[in-house]
């Protein structure tokens, strides 16, 4: 299911945050990293794609179908959005919290297929041992992984992850992104993730989109984008792009 964002402008009230954003032809199974400094409009772009903000202009198409004005629930069937992590004090188990995410877009009754999907998703993300734990008892990192599970379980066409690794240690950063990649190989959704760590972005993404002040500065393969002078400008740092001995891209940054 190809995702295309064309000439999108959106904002809050009278403030326009996104200015004429265009990202064309993101193919199924593509992992797009959205990079850019704080307050670049990454979350706003995600909220607009997820239908939480109505754009003032522009269109969104999934597999050739215009979904710009698709209702809240129909949109949620096709686009799953994980907001930045928030704590919660609900008396629900991890299993239940993933089940409830799935049940928003499937019928009222819980059937066998629903239960299979929840347990498979938890297993795929390495969260099975937390299934009976209360969501309020989770650590920040665990809660973030459960939030990813809540997004993936719905098997949508488009998955939007707002800083999925911000609360995770190194092991879990790698493990969650690897699990997402594995899921993508199976179900071929489009995944867009806002990432602050450029090295993680280089390692996992097929394509990077650089956003600054609500406008797109660059869009392309990681090795091209990370070598651009705009990276230094946008992040206000000096960078060196290297290839390690194992041919992995490495961004070395220091203050200008």
């Amino acid at each position, binding site marked *: 299911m190809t995702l295309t964002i064309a000439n999108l402008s959106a904002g809050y009230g009278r403030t326009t945050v996104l200015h004429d954003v265009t990202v064309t032809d993101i193919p199924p199974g593509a992992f797009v990293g959205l990079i850019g400094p704080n307050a670049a409009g990454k979350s706003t772009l995600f909220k607009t794609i997820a239908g939480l903000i109505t754009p003032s202009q522009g269109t969104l198409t999934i597999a050739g179908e215009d979904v710009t004005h698709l209702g809240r*629930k129909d949109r949620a069937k096709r686009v799953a959005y994980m*907001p930045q992590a*928030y704590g919660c004090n*609900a*008396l*629900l188990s991890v299993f239940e919290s993933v089940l409830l995410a799935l049940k928003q*877009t499937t019928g009222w009754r819980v059937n066998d297929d629903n239960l299979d999907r*929840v347990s498979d998703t*938890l297993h795929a993300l390495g969260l099975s041992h937390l299934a009976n734990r209360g969501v309020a008892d989770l650590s920040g990192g665990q809660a973030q992984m459960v939030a990813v599970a809540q997004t993936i379980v719905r098997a949508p066409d488009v998955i939007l992850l707002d800083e999925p690794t911000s609360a995770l240690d190194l092991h879990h950063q790698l493990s969650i992104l690897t699990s997402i990649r594995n899921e993508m190989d199976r179900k071929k959704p489009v995944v867009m993730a806002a990432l602050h760590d450029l090295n993680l972005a280089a390692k996992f993404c097929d394509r990077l989109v650089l956003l600054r002040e609500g406008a797109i500065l660059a869009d392309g393969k990681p090795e091209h984008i990370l070598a651009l002078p705009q990276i230094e400008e946008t992040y206000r740092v000096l960078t060196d792009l290297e290839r390690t001995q194992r041919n992995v891209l490495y961004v070395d940054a220091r203050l200008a």
Partner: protein
Amino acid sequence: MTLEVDPAAIRHDYVARVSRRYGVIAAVFGLLCLSFLLDITTGPGGYSLSTIAEVLVDPMSHGARLKVIVWDYRLPVAVTAVLVGALLAVAGAQMQTILNNPLAEPFTLGVSAAASFGASLAIVLGFSVIPAVGPLLVTVNAFVFALCTCGFILLATRLKGVGSETMILFGIAIFFTFSALLALMQYMASEDQIARIVFWMMGSLSRASWEKIGLGTILLCFAIPFSLYRTWPMTALRMGEATAQSMGVDLGRLRVEMLICISLLAATAVSFVGTVGFVGLVGPHIARMLVGEDQRYFVPLSAMVGALVLSLTSLISKTITPGIIYPIGIITSLIGVPIFISIILSSRRERLQ
């Protein structure tokens, strides 16, 4: 991470947990039936359970006197206790969910205060909001004021799109406003009228009637299926508003629907029996400790626990001093609160069942 569990096992755990919950619900229902039966057999006269049962089956089997006692007095009181307990607890449960605050209930949000003011307006000035309601004047006034208060909170959220914290602040402001107005009414009232206002506010089940019961039952028969229908968005709301919205929940619409439902439930319950605090708080709280917050089990069990609490209150109000029926508002607070606190303290931490 190393302790990976088989997917079939976690699935099995969930299914087992669900069946345990049905067990808990059945047990509470059993207790409720028991309390209800005790409630109708307890009272002056000391009739046995079998005598009462015979009158229930055949009203005239033990003469007209016993028919009046059972059918016109004890049964309406016992049914009203169950019904109002359920109404208050469901209203409390839904308020707590949409406001994300375990302290929300009709009493804390000023609904009871508004109803008391409406009642006092009828008692002191004989003023009716809806003309020509006759003997139902006090009840109707209380209902209209309670409903308007909920409507006001609703309107405020709708107009400003305010969050749950602002809604609670609104509720507190309403509570103090109506308390002041109530004090003003009492200042203007005669001694006899003050006595009536105070008695109304204490809460009593003796205002029970079959008409009220019919009305309350119809309401409950809409409210519980409706909240079951909205069970998944409501459960999602427990994950936080931002998360629920990202899952496709139309938060604005859900809030409005639920506030309308809560308004009707709370206004009805309060206008029927007066101020009964605490049931709307304790019903959902105990239900949450027993089955967690999956609304499919949480809402029906809240209703049952609320019903059980008020039914037991009715029983206790008759048995403390034989021949005297204490106002239920006093009993729920005096006896209920220490029990409630001991429950909170004994289960140091809320755990999932």
